[in-house]
C-alpha cells in the first residue's frame, strides 16, 4: 500500500513539474534572471505547492500518525549553521548554471537526452561525494 501511495505521489509530482513548466530550464533561469526578462512563473508554482501543504501540516498536527501507520516526521532541531548556509549557497549556484533542481532533472529524463542524463549523473556523483565525506567524518569522530 505504501508502495502504491509512493508511486501515485511520484507520478503527481512529476506531472505537476511538467504542467507548471519547471521541467523547462529556460523558465527557471528566467525566474533567476532578475535584471533581464524576468519570468515570475516560479512564484506561482511555489505558492501553489505550499497551499495544499499548509492544510496537510494542520491535519498532520492533529493525527501524529500517518494513515498507513508511520509517525509524522517531527520538526527537525532548528539549527542554522554553516552546513545549511554553505549547502544552500552551492545548491543555488548549481541550480542557476543549468536551470535544474533535483525534481525537474529527474522528471524530464524521458526527453532531456544526454545533457539531462549527464546532469543527473553529476548530481548523483555530488551526492555520493557528500555521503563519503560524511562517513569519513563519522569514523573520525568515533
Amino acid at each position, binding site marked *: 500500500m505504501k508502495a502504491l501511495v509512493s508511486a501515485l505521489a511520484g507520478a503527481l509530482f512529476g506531472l505537476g513539474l511538467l504542467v507548471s513548466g519547471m521541467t523547462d530550464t529556460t523558465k527557471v533561469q528566467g525566474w533567476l534572471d532578475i535584471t533581464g526578462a524576468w519570468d515570475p512563473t516560479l512564484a506561482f508554482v511555489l505558492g501553489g505547492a505550499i*497551499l495544499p501543504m499548509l492544510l496537510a501540516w494542520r491535519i498532520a498536527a492533529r493525527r501524529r500518525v500517518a494513515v498507513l501507520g508511520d509517525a509524522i516526521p517531527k520538526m527537525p532541531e532548528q539549527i542554522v549553521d554553516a552546513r545549511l548556509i554553505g549547502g544552500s549557497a552551492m545548491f543555488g549556484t548549481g541550480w542557476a548554471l543549468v536551470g535544474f533542481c533535483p525534481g525537474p532533472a529527474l522528471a524530464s529524463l524521458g526527453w532531456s537526452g544526454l545533457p539531462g542524463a549527464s546532469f543527473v549523473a553529476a548530481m548523483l556523483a555530488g551526492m555520493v561525494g557528500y555521503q563519503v565525506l560524511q562517513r569519513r567524518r563519522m569514523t573520525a569522530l568515533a
Partner: protein
Amino acid sequence: MAFGLIPTDWIWGLAGGLMIGAAAALLLLFNGRILGASGILARLTDGSLTRNGSETLPFLAALIGAPALAVALSGGATTQVTGNYALLITGGLLVGFGALMANGCTSGHGVCGMSRFSLRSIVSTVIYLGFGMAAYFVAAYGIGVL
C-alpha cells in the same frame, strides 16, 4: 473579468504547483514521509534501500515515467537543457553535493519545510534563491557563459 490579462504560464504554474503540493500532502498524510526529491534520490546510494526500497523505487520510477509518458503521448517535446557539458557537470555536482549538505532542496525545504514554517527551510530557501539569482547574473552578464 481580468482573467484574460493573466499570462497563461502563470495559470499553468499555479495548477502544476497545486499538483506538486497535493503529491507532497499525499506522501505526508498516508506514508508519513517528506517529499524531498534530493533526499529520496540520495537513498539510492546511502545503503538504506533494503529498508525503504519498496517506497523509494516506485516513487522514482513514477516521477520519471509519468511525465515521460505524458510527453510521449502528446507528441514528444524538445528540451531546452544546455548542451554545454562543463555547465552540466559543474551544476550537477553543486546541486547534488549542496542539497545533501543543506539537508534539502526546492521540494524538501521550499515546499515541505516552508509550509510548516521551519526556520531552517526558510533560511535555506532565501539563500539558494539569492545565490541562484547572483550566480545567474555573474554567469550570464559577467562571464557570459549562459
